[in-house]
């Protein structure tokens, strides 16, 4: 009886591990889409409404969903309170985003480039940079969507099957 409970616990543990790994793959497209929306909102705020940057970022953070909202809020706070440069603020915000979400460093590259263009504040250049970044993110999102489901299912299978094989070998 105890053996059966132990075996089920082992399978459950490995399955949950597998599901955890799968979740990262599944969440990435969704978070990329949220990032695109946030970036578009930021573009609207900065270009068409000319709001100052910290306020614009705060507004974007209001409308966005976590984890992107947290990043924008953090960047906004850094700009307003600490008076850090735009590039540094974004860099630290992105570092936190990569650590806390399913996004990778390469996904956040377009945002870093927008940050760098924001600091030079060249209007026309800014517009093209926003467009480039949004396009890059959309491409990444499409790729993530195609790969993500496949990888997620793979990790779920691996988790369950590894647990079952361990139980069978150790039973």
């Amino acid at each position, binding site marked *: 009886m105890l053996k059966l409970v132990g075996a089920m616990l082992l399978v459950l543990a490995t399955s949950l591990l597998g599901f955890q790994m799968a979740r990262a793959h599944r969440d990435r497209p969704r978070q990329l889409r949220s990032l695109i929306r946030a970036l578009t909102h930021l573009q609207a705020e900065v270009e068409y409404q000319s709001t100052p940057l910290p306020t614009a970022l705060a507004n974007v953070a209001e409308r966005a969903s976590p984890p992107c909202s947290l990043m924008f809020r953090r960047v906004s706070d850094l700009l307003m309170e600490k008076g850090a440069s735009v590039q540094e603020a974004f860099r630290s915000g992105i570092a936190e985003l990569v650590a806390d979400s399913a996004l990778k460093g390469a996904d956040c590259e377009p945002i870093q480039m927008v940050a760098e263009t924001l600091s030079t504040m060249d209007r026309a250049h800014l517009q093209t940079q926003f467009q480039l970044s949004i396009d890059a993110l959309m491409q990444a999102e499409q790729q993530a969507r195609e790969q993500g489901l496949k990888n997620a299912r793979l990790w779920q*299978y691996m988790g369950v099957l590894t647990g079952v094989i361990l139980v069978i070998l150790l039973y």
Partner: protein
Amino acid sequence: MSPEIRDVFRIFAVGFIAAILHTVLKQSGKEDFAHWATLAGFIAVFAIVIGYVDHLYQEITSVFLLQ
């Protein structure tokens, strides 16, 4: 259930799951990992079988007086 039958079923189960894992990994594009996984399962099963071969060897040498 005698331990021998349990080992037969164990090898069967490990082999079946290894085949499933192989297919799943190959469909997700990680073919080399699939081969490693199958090889690992094969080695695990082989370890079980080798134990039995050793037992058989002891038995035969003792019964048939093969020094």
